[in-house]
């Protein structure tokens, strides 16, 4: 199956476009009032990242990212720390503050679309203006891609986009990307 996908992509875009799963990421959802001092503090304690308070932005370190999902909701994604470590660390730092920390690792995965024309491929199924002037480094957006809910993060330095998607949609989205790539520039 993987061979078929790779070879067709290669034929379609001259091997310039790559679709790959980003494995090994741990996902944790955090909900809480950002005005409560322990909420931004807990994220800084555990991941050494300042909590992003601007809509559609993210905070990043070498090994982890914190995505803004809503005015009181964030997605934490980490390579180095396990979800159990993040969850227990956050709960310890949050203390008695009214907040929710949920391990979503088994529910999400990431797909990275990389190479020339990756923006054109996404634009085929997404209503967002993906131009780097409006949607660049340090930004992220939850939207629909080919009717599947995704969190899109542009990675301009790599000429790539990362799509965080529910695993139940991942297979569908993978095939849709593969199909859409056949007409990429």
């Amino acid at each position, binding site marked *: 199956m993987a061979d078929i996908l790779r070879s067709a992509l290669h034929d379609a875009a001259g091997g310039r476009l790559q679709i790959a799963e980003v494995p090994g990421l741990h996902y944790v959802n955090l909900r809480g009032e950002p005005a409560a001092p322990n909420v931004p503090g807990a994220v800084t304690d555990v991941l050494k990242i300042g909590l992003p308070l601007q*809509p559609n932005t993210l905070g990043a370190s070498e090994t982890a990212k914190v995505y803004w999902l*809503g005015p009181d909701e964030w997605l934490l994604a980490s390579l180095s720390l396990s979800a159990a470590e993040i969850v227990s660390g956050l709960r310890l730092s949050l203390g008695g503050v009214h907040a929710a920390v949920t391990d979503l690792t088994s529910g999400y995965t990431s797909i990275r679309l990389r190479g020339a024309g990756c923006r054109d491929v996404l634009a085929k199924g997404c209503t967002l203006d993906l131009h780097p002037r409006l949607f660049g480094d340090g930004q992220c957006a939850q939207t629909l891609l080919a009717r599947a809910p995704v969190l899109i993060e542009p990675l301009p330095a790599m000429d790539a986009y990362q799509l965080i998607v529910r695993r139940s949609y991942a297979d569908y989205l993978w095939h849709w990307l593969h199909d859409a790539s056949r007409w990429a520039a």
Partner: protein
Amino acid sequence: MLLITCPWCGPRAETEFSCGGEAGIVRPTAPDTVSDAEWADYLFMRSNHRGLHREQWWHAHGCRRWFIVRRDTVTYRIDGIEKLGAAGEAT
């Protein structure tokens, strides 16, 4: 398609949203004491207004927040956006 400006995420396509009907419907504070007619009025009766209309929208595929859109039901023109709580609604 409508271009709706979410008060948090900015302008997004209508497909990301779900409409929750007329805004400002207040649930009776003591449901046990109201008559059937008053309860039915709260549950079912809407103004079906022609012209400028305040309605609830939910950014289902974005930040998942409810907010209020003032929209002209004749021209579809959106006149204004409010966060919940701004006009006294429960958040």
